């Protein structure tokens, strides 16, 4: 049966609704075609990028560009582009999958790829007029031109709408003249097209423009020197200066003053793609680390036989698997929503895509934060497993660690995304898209009522874990509900509270996704066959509870006192209770022994 818009979870609704394990998409559900795409992308990376990993550390921007051309020849740049504009018009999951597997070898390439296919191309496919799309998108899809996205300025970073770049309409009304300075522009060194945001007169919001760039006919555009960076060293990052750059009026993107919206919507997609782009990097680091651990002998035994190393391998694998699970879960929601909106005939493909992604902006922020932090931890432990060799430029760990660092900064810093996730949730609640208040009140009543003394039956797989997830959601509603009541819209000013609430939200989404995937797998394959995945879901939940407990405590204490505080702290204790607590050392052993035996990340 085809699902309708009502059947699928709206963005943020995971918090107040239960999801059935059959209703989440997991990588095990890839079609044969998607499987083939994945293999093709991996083959490309293994052949063209991975053997040249060292070269990407030498600031060889031309090499990155050459690799982008090869990626273009294989069609990797055109996956998400509609067929009408020279693309392949594939669905969102396929787009995410390519982004995932193409990003494993080096952050230099994945940044170039992401900046081009995401923020460099999307503003036109999502907001362009028919003429703009016909003119530019085929060139971007084929890789004849590369794109860049010029939002950030020296004085406008996180505060992206505050840019000073000006756009002035000519006397004859035919073109705008752009003057200003952009900073940190990825792909600047080899792009032919720039999406540029500038302000017209004293508009409240910036406006987007499509600007062509031809080195031989620069039209007032000059580039700064390449930045010298901690990581992603062969990704071109430059300043771009516009001095009376003339842009025909028909190159305005969308309408005047709509630029901030464009910028934010392009970033929503960018964020989930960035999460995906941090996945294969982790798989490769884990595989390299376990291979090293199996070969490196100390005290007459491979270091992989040491509990200390096994702990790291188990945790790295778990984070990677959990991040992957949540990323593909959200991708499927986005894909379904786009399809449904398009099929209902009300939306064009463009509108459907825009609204489909916007709907899950909360999940996109959650994923960006969570997976970028996982990859940071993973590369850090990768270095640790390699010991002194990990610190050396001669092993792939050192560059992987440096490359991972940027993911927490661009596409909106993790602080900004954490706060956005809560801010957007509150807005959705106010619009009535997600009912937070109803459940929050129910939770408050439950807390003041008499607790149930029934002993629940937790004999089936994950029955306790699922009730814990339900309780963690209650915990979030209790904390957020009370904080909102206390501060109202002023809550945004209480950043530490917002960050803590976001940590709870993130952990709930990840933990639930992981449990559902393991449950779905167990149903299909039998519990014995997937004991490692079951262990990963439980280990992750265990950690999630710890993080949530801390964040919950900090929040409650910060804004409550007296009886109210006591009651909420009791609620906290009740909602994080894990009766049949698993032995997490045993869980880690189950996970690590499989990875060590396979000598590879194998989930």
């Amino acid at each position, binding site marked *: 049966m085809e699902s309708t818009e009502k059947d699928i979870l709206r963005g943020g609704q995971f918090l107040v609704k239960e999801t059935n394990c059959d209703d989440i998409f997991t990588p095990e559900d890839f079609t*044969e*075609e998607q*499987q*083939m*795409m994945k*293999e*093709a992308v991996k*083959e*490309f990376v293994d*052949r063209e990028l991975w053997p040249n990993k060292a070269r990407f550390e030498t600031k060889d921007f031309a090499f990155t560009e050459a690799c982008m051309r090869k990626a273009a*020849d*294989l*069609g*990797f740049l*055109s*996956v998400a582009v509609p067929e009408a504009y020279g693309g*392949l018009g*594939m669905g969102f999951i396929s787009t995410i999958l*390519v982004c995932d597997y193409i990003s494993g070898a080096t952050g230099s390439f994945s940044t170039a790829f992401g900046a081009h296919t995401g923020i460099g191309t999307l503003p036109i496919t999502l907001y362009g007029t028919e003429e703009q799309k016909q003119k530019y998108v085929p060139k971007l899809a084929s890789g004849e031109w590369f794109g860049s996205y010029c939002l950030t300025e020296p004085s406008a970073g996180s505060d992206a709408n505050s840019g000073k770049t000006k756009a002035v309409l000519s006397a004859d009304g035919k073109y705008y003249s752009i003057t200003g300075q952009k900073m940190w522009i990825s792909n600047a060194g080899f792009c032919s097209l720039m999406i540029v945001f500038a302000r017209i007169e004293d508009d409240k919001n910036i406006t987007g423009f499509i600007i062509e760039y031809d080195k031989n006919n620069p039209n007032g555009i000059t580039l700064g020197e390449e930045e010298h960076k901690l990581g992603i060293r062969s990704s071109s990052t430059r300043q771009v200066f516009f001095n009376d750059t003339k842009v025909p009026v028909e190159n305005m993107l969308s309408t005047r003053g709509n630029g901030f919206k464009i910028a934010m919507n392009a970033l929503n997609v960018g964020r989930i793609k960035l999460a995906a782009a941090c996945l294969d990097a982790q798989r490769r680091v884990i595989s390299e680390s376990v291979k090293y651990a199996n070969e490196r002998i100390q005290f007459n035994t491979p270091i992989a036989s040491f509990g200390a190393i096994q702990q790291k391998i188990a945790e790295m694998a778990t984070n990677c698997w959990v991040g992957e699970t949540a990323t593909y879960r959200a991708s499927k929601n986005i894909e379904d929503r786009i399809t449904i909106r398009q099929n209902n005939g009300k939306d064009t493909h463009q509108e459907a895509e825009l609204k489909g992604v916007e709907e899950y902006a909360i999940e996109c922020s959650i994923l960006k934060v969570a997976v970028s932090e996982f990859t940071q931890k993973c590369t850090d432990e990768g270095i640790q497993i390699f010991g002194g060799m990990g610190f050396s430029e001669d092993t792939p760990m050192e560059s992987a660690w440096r490359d991972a660092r940027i993911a927490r900064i661009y596409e909106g810093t993790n602080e900004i995304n954490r706060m956005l996730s809560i801010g957007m949730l509150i807005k959705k609640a106010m619009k009535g898209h997600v009912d937070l208040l109803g459940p929050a009140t129910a939770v408050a009543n439950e807390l003041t009522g008499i607790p149930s003394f029934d002993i629940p039956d937790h004999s089936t797989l994950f029955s306790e874990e699922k009730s814990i997830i339900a309780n963690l959601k209650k915990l979030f509603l209790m904390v957020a509900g009370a904080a909102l009541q206390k501060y109202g819209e002023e809550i945004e000013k209480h950043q530490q509270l917002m960050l803590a609430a976001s940590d709870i939200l993130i952990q709930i989404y990840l933990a639930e996704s992981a449990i559902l995937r393991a449950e779905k797998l167990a149903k299909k394959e039998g519990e014995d066959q997937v004991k490692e995945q079951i262990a990963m879901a439980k280990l992750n939940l265990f950690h999630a509870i710890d993080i949530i407990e801390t964040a919950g405590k900090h929040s409650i204490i910060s804004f409550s006192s007296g009886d109210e505080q006591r009651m909420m702290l009791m609620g906290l204790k009740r909602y994080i209770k894990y009766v049949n607590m698993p032995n997490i050392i045993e869980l880690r052993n189950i996970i690590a022994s499989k990875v060590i035996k396979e000598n590879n990340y194998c989930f």
Partner: protein
Amino acid sequence: MKILVCISHVPDTTSKINFTEGDTKFDTNGVQFVINPNDEFGLTRAMWFKEKQGANVTVVNVGGAETEPTLRKALAIGADAAIRVNRAATDGFSVAKQLAQVVKDGGYDLVIAGRESIDYNGGMVPGMIAGLTNANFINNCIGLEIEGTTAKAIREIDGGKETLSTTLPLVIGGQKGLVEESDLKIPNMRGIMMARQKPLTILEPVEATAETTSVKFEKPAPKGAVKLIAPDNLDALVDLLHNEAKVI
């Protein structure tokens, strides 16, 4: 020119090899399958004939439904059509018999098979196809050009190469050299999408009985640790080579 490329569905070279059922069966659990490397060189050469000389390329495999992803990959790389003969690939002779039937029914001018498949390394199939279809045969083929109905082929021989001239219909047992590793094609995204629309025909097998059956498999003994001998201790080295490694 009609080309038939025989595609064997084999475990990836990095697979861990295990046996089940008392060492009589290969354990496919967790094994990833790929196009047999020798066949992939042949397929890539066939794509060259398609691009440069307008050849029409069909790929064929004898096997169960589980081999279809491998055939579809060949379609994604650019083959025009695929055939699967619905029968387990039990032994060289019965596989060759199926393939010979496909060759006869399809009237192919050139049959490209791999010199051997990297799973059981039988190395019999291409020669048998040639025998059963009455075609010319060149094994260990490392170079092939076709002009009209004349073929110029290079064959690897002990310590050198031999250039041969022959006529179509021809069967070759190909290997690396037909093209180089760097020429192998990664299926592009459009190719993958198009593969869905290309025909994959399933044929029922012709009667054939296995003339050989495998009785038992064994893995080579695991490699021991490296022993280092001091350069001045030649006696110890000789002793180890003679008594332990038994090579002198």
